[in-house]
Every structure is written in C-alpha cells, then in structure tokens.
C-alpha cells in the first residue's frame, strides 16, 4: 500500500510540476499576476509530494518490503539500518528520485530566500525549474519507476552492492546531487534573464549565492567520493579519471569558471553573454553527467545499472533543455555585448584568462571521456582513454590557471600597471621557485612534476599570505579586531578557497611522488619494517558481521618501539551476493596515512598484506574542505542579505499594487 501511495504522490508531483512549468512562464510573458502567483505554491506542493514519495520508498527499504522490486534487488533483511537507507539511492531509480527531491528542495529554497527578486523574474526562474522537474519526474514514471512491484514478493533481497556499504556512500550521492542539481538554479536564473532581456548586475548578484552554494555541495561531494575510492576500493588510489568521476568533475570546472565570471558581471557588467553561456554549460554538463552515468553509453569502472532505453529518454531531455536554451542564447545574446571595458593588464583579464582555461580543461576532459564513443561511432575501432591522456592535458592547462589565480586579487579592476604588480609579486615568485626546487631536492625526487607541483603550491601559499598581510596593513592604526572585521566575508571566502588550492596541490604532488608500497606475506607473529614503522602481525580471526563474514587481521603499528595504532584490515565476503570485499585499515595522520589492506590467504596459511605509506594525502581532503569553506563564506556574505532586506519593501509594495 505504501509503495502505491509513493507512486501516486509522484504522479501528483508531476501534475504540480507541469503547473509550475506552464502557468508562471505564460503569466510572465502576459504580465498576468495571478498566473505568476501560482509558481510559489506549486513549487512548494511539489516538494511535499516528492518528499513524501521519497519517504515511502525509504519506508519500503527500512521494512525490507521485498515485494518492491527495487528493495528486493538492493537490500537484504540483514543489511544494517544505515545501509538499508543508503540503498534507497544506491541504484538507478532511487538516485533519480533523490535527483528530483534535490531539485524541488532547491526550488523551494529559491521561493523562500529570493523574495526580493521581482515577481516576473522569479516566476520565470520557477517556471524553468518546473520544466526540468517535469522532465525528471516523467523520466522516472515512464522508464524507471522506483515503486515497481515484484509479485509475488521475494523471500529475501539480493542486498546492496557491498562497495556501497560504507559511511562515505551515505553522504556522497546526496552531496553530489545537491551540487549537480544546484546548477539548475544558476541555469534558471540565466534563462530567466535571457527571457526578460534583463541582463544587468542585479541578475548576477541574485544568482551568485545560489551558484556558489551549488559549487560548495559539488566540491564536497566530489571530495567524499574520492575519499571513498581511496579507502574502499582497496588499492589506495584517489582519482582514476573514470567516466563517472569525470562526469562530476566537468560541471565543477565549468561551475568554478561560472562563479568567477558572475563576479565580473556583478562588479563590472562585463562578460554578460559569456556568463550566461557558462551557466547553461555548467548545468548541461550536470545533465550530461547524469546521461553518461545512467545510459551505459560509456563503460566505466563503476558502471552500475545501465540501460539504453533510459539513455534515449535522457538524451531527448538533453536536447529539449539544452537545445532550447542554446537557441534562446543565440537569439538574445547578441544584445548582451558591451559592458565595462578593461585594459590588457587588469583583474578582468586574469579572470577571463582563467575562465577560458577552465572551459578548455572542461572540454578536454569531455573529449577524453567521449573519445572512445566518437571513434566507435565513426567505426574507427574501440579504445579506452586512460589517465596518461588526462594528466598530459590537465597539468599544462591548470598550471597557468594556478599562476593567474594569484595575480587576480593583486590587480585592480579595469586597468593596472604591469610594473607595480610584478614588483609586488616578484619576491614571492622567486621564493616559490626556490622552495619548489629545494624541497624536491631535499626529498630526493627531482622530477619535473614534483618540482612543478611544489613550486605552484609554494606560489599559492606565499602569495596568499602576502595578500592577507597587505589587507591587514590597509588600515594602519585601527585595532587588529576591527581590521579583521572590516574585511567582508566574500573576501575571506576568496582567500580561503584559493589557499585551499595550494594545500590541495601539496597533497596531490607529494602523494604522487613519494608514496611507498610494500606487498609481503605474513603469518601470526611476523614482524615487518617499512617506511620507518614496524608492523607486527598478531593473527587473523574470523568474525561474523551483520550481513558478511570476515577475516580480520590485527596488526600493531609502532615507531621506534612506541605503539602508534592497532590496524584491523578485513577481507569480507558479503553473504547475499557472495561478493568478496577488501576493507583497508588506516592510521590517518596530518603528514601521512599508513594504509594496510589484507590480500588473499596463501595455501600455506600465510596472508598477503599490502602496506602503503601515503604522505600528505589528508592535505588533498583539507584543500577541498578549505575550498568548500571558502564557498560557504562567500555565499554567506552580508552584501547579499543586506540587499535582500533593502529591496524587500520595494518588492512588497509592488506586490500590493
């Protein structure tokens, strides 16, 4: 009964989404108040029904209702409660429902927090969001109904893919989807601006906090996914340039370009048509990502459920959403030329340069991801594109991005003098080159990649510190606390995120260059020395988990005779699927992780143990966290709220008329 209620709620949500899509858009073009006024309640009602449907599906999972096909395939009565809930979105149908729920959550957030936006504009934004929602809910109802029954019901479920039974997978998909779907808000604002022809600074200011919020979610989502791959896949890698990873990385790159481009549009009125194009692009890549992951058009290391019929539907959706918006762009964008002019040496130039570079990187990742498909379609054979291509393209293109990134904040808007900037930054530049070579030499790892990475990281850190120092000296005489509070949150956001990039590069460079790995066979009582640590293998015991049986090894980790940690890597076999899984054990530290995974048991009774030392890997996550934190600070800047308050009475007055 409850699954049917969920199904019915989804149908009602579709009806409300249709209303939300059609009436406000028509109302906005005819300037009909009452039609536009439908947008807000329709969006909120849709949210209620989609959430209700989601709750019904969750209920079916929690109660192990194996007469629902999705539950029978993705859950088991022995699965721990947490992973029963994770099972809701650990599959195609459920993840689409999560997609639809995030979309309606964002839409409701827009109805609540954008009250200051003029009604016509807001009606268009909600209308566009409604169109997207119609597409996705219809997709679910037509091709991938999560509530399909399995009659008669199964006695026992097949269990959730053990790879997904991990705390990281609980939050990874929701974060990632909030990010993907969040770009739909930026997209809706851009389309609304194109429709209304109102392409001024106000539009950029309304859209900025939304775009940054989506970007924060996407950053956090990608980070959690990468950390999951690191400890769950059991071989210590953290990024594989896999199509599914690329699908999330491309919108991130374009989204990064978009938030910077919006800054220029807001402050200087420039780049307007480019900003609109980026907003369309970032959302298009989110949709494309969904298409790639869900259609099975590309083989992937984490290929989960795939189905070409569903692919056709998403493709049609892509054509409608993106095709129509690009057509609209081609029609309206010619009016958007102009805006503030700027000199060759100016903050605009650095931002434009980085925007173009990020867009090119994004296009290269897209090319690499789809290249096997292109060749196949042109009958030129089947190939796979691996990490060497992506590294060869990514490193040279991102190097100037990182260099320019630190120039930007030092330059004035409009125009600046080369001499001043060079004089201010030359010491930091020279010092970073020295530090880069010096550190690489000290590590005895003088490869060009290590040197380059370390130079760039030093450059970001030094230039950031100098920037902060300069900012704090600005108001000489004032007390430190008043100087600190005078700096707006948006500036801190920019600073923190850029600094995070530096920390991230340190992590990536050092993990890539000086990590160490040793595979050996051990039995109870054995001791091994590796990377300055001793590992003493205490033995292996059989344990029974809730839905798996495991062999758990106990390894005492010590350094210079002092105990550091007890590591317990496991080799699990999940009962329902009979699938073996490696559960690595980590001792996480600020400067290194010690990572131990348990391999096969040899016929003689020894175990194969794989030891890794991963230097500075936590810095990769720390860098991502700083970037996300920077985004939060920037989105929380008082400026957006103050303007909201100021324009609220005006909006209310207009409403009364």
């Amino acid at each position, binding site marked *: 009964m409850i699954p049917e209620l969920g199904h019915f709620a989804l149908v009602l949500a579709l009806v409300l989404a249709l209303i939300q899509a059609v009436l406000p858009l028509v109302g906005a073009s005819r300037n009909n108040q009452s039609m536009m006024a439908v947008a807000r309640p329709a969006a909120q009602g849709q949210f209620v029904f989609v959430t209700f449907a989601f709750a019904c599906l969750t209920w079916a999972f929690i109660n192990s209702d194996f007469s629902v096909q999705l539950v029978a395939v993705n859950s088991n009565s022995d699965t721990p409660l947490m992973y029963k809930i994770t099972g809701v979105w650990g599959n195609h149908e459920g993840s689409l429902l999560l997609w639809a729920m995030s979309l309606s959550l964002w839409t409701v957030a827009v109805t609540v927090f954008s009250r200051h936006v003029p009604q016509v504009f807001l009606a268009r934004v909600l209308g566009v969001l409604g169109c997207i929602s119609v597409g996705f809910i219809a997709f679910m109802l037509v091709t991938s109904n999560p509530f399909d029954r399995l009659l008669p019901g199964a006695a026992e479920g097949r269990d959730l893919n053990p790879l997904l039974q991990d705390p990281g997978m609980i939050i990874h998909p929701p974060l990632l989807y909030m990010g993907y779907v969040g770009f739909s808000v930026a997209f809706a604002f851009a389309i609304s601006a194109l429709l209304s022809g109102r392409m001024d600074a106000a539009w950029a200011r309304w859209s900025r906090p939304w775009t940054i919020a989506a970007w924060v979610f996407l950053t956090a989502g990608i980070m959690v996914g990468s950390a999951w791959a690191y400890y769950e896949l059991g071989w210590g890698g953290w990024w594989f340039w896999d199509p599914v990873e690329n699908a999330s990385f491309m919108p991130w790159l374009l989204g990064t370009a978009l938030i910077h481009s919006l800054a220029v549009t807001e402050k200087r009125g420039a780049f307007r048509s480019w900003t609109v194009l980026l907003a369309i692009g970032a959302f298009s890549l989110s949709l494309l990502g969904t298409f790639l992951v869900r259609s099975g058009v590309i083989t992937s290391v984490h290929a989960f459920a795939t189905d070409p019929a569903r692919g056709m539907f998403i493709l049609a959706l*892509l054509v409608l959403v993106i095709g129509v918006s690009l057509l609209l762009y081609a029609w309206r964008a010619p009016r958007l030329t102009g805006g503030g002019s700027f000199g060759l040496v100016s903050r605009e130039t650095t931002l434009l340069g980085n925007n173009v570079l990020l867009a090119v990187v994004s296009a290269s990742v897209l090319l690499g991801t*789809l290249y096997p498909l292109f060749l*196949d379609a042109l009958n030129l054979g*089947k190939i796979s594109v691996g990490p060497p291509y992506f590294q060869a393209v990514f490193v040279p293109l991102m190097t100037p991005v990182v260099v320019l990134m630190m120039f930007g904040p030092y330059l004035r808007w409009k125009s600046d003098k080369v001499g001043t900037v060079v004089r201010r930054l030359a010491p930091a530049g020279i010092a970073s080159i020295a530090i880069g070579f010096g550190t690489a030499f000290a590590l005895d790892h003088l490869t060009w990649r290590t040197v380059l990475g370390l130079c760039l990281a030093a450059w970001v850190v030094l230039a950031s510190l100098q920037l902060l120092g300069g900012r704090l000296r600005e108001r000489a005489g004032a007390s430190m606390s008043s100087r600190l509070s005078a700096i707006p949150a948006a500036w801190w956001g920019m600073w923190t995120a850029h600094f995070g990039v530096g920390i991230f590069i340190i992590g990536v460079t050092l993990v890539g260059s000086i990590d160490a790995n040793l595979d050996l066979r051990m039995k109870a009582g054995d001791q091994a020395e590796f990377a300055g640590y001793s590992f003493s293998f205490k033995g292996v015991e059989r344990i029974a988990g809730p839905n798996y049986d495991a062999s758990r090894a106990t390894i005492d980790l010590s350094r210079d005779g002092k105990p550091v940690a007890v590591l317990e890597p496991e080799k699990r076999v999940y009962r329902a699927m009979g699938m073996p899984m490696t559960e690595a054990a980590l001792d996480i530290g600020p400067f290194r992780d010690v990572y131990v995974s348990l391999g096969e048991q040899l016929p003689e009774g020894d175990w*194969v143990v794989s030891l890794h030392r991963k230097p500075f890997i936590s810095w990769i996550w720390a860098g991502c966290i700083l970037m996300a934190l920077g985004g939060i600070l920037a989105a929380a800047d008082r400026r957006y709220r103050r303007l909201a308050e100021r324009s609220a009475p005006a909006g209310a007055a207009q409403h009364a008329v």
Partner: protein
Amino acid sequence: MKAKFLVPLFLFLLLIGFLGFGLTLNPREVPSPLIDKPAPDFSLARLDQPEQRFGLEQMRGQVWLLNVWASWCVACRQEHPVLVKLARSGVVPIVGLNYKEVRGDGEIDARGMALETETAQAIERARDWLTRHGNPYQLSVMDIDGRVGIDFGVYGVPETFLIDQQGRIRYKQIGPVTAENLEQVLMPKIKELQRAG
C-alpha cells in the same frame, strides 16, 4: 541572430548526434570478425611453469573462457572477484592471457629492455598480482609482446573470449565481466554450449 552565437548550439547538436548514435552501440560488445570463427592458434609460455608451453589444442573438447588481463589494468581488478568466484564454482575453466604485462604499463619504459629482463619482470609482477588478488585461472600464458593479443583483436584489457569444444570463438566481452552480465549473458551461453557438446 548573429552566426557566432549559434556556434554553441551547433557544437551541442553535433555532440548529441554522437551520443544518440552511441546509444545504438554497445561498448561491451564487439562486432568481431572472429565470432564463430576458429580462435587463432598460439603457443605461449605458461606463467606458472615458463619452460612449458600451452596452446589451443590442450583445451579441445571443452567449453572455456580466455580472459585477457594484466596487473596494470585497473578494470581487471574490478572483474577479478567475479572471476575468482566463477572459478570456484567450477562451471567453466578460465585460462588467463597475461597481455603485455610490462610494456603495456604506462609507467614503465620497456623500449630498451631485453626480452629476458622483460619476461622475468613480467613473471614476477603477474605472479605477485595473482597471489594478492587470488588466482581464478586454470593456468595463465604470457603474451609478452602482445602478438597473440593482436591475432585475437584485443582492443583493451580486460577482454574475455568464450571458446567452444571445437576451438571456435563464440562470444567476446569487452571490458570487465560483472556479476550481472555473467549471470545474464555469459552463463546462458556457456550452459548452451556445454549442452550442445
């Protein structure tokens, strides 16, 4: 409407064309000219006993799988547990074709390497890998230079060939064998061939 503003739309439509066409293709299935043809014969050194050689005739009369693998291949690690489980069930023998173990690894420059050195390295790496991840293979042979791979039309690793009692290739799977396609595609074909024989 100025032409330059239509560029993004055209690029997008081009992309859509490819994606739409891509949907009609199956990246895991190969229009191999070898399907239903006799498998190319070979004679290669065994991984466990390099002094012995192995060829097609030794599998004559059996339905078996030839799985192309290498220790540097990330997707192989994904399919590996599936193969180990399949091997334990004893339904079908699996022979491993260790493909370009050394020179296929992007991180090693094997150009100047003597064949003996390369072979020795390959044996060590491949054996290590099997000890770590489990050995599903009845035996593995070493295709150091990838020539047998070329005869079989190997595009990428992993690939899996289903070969019948008469030594004909009956099916080819590109990319990792997953529990799902093992159950839905490979097993039915294996069962059918075994019954026919």
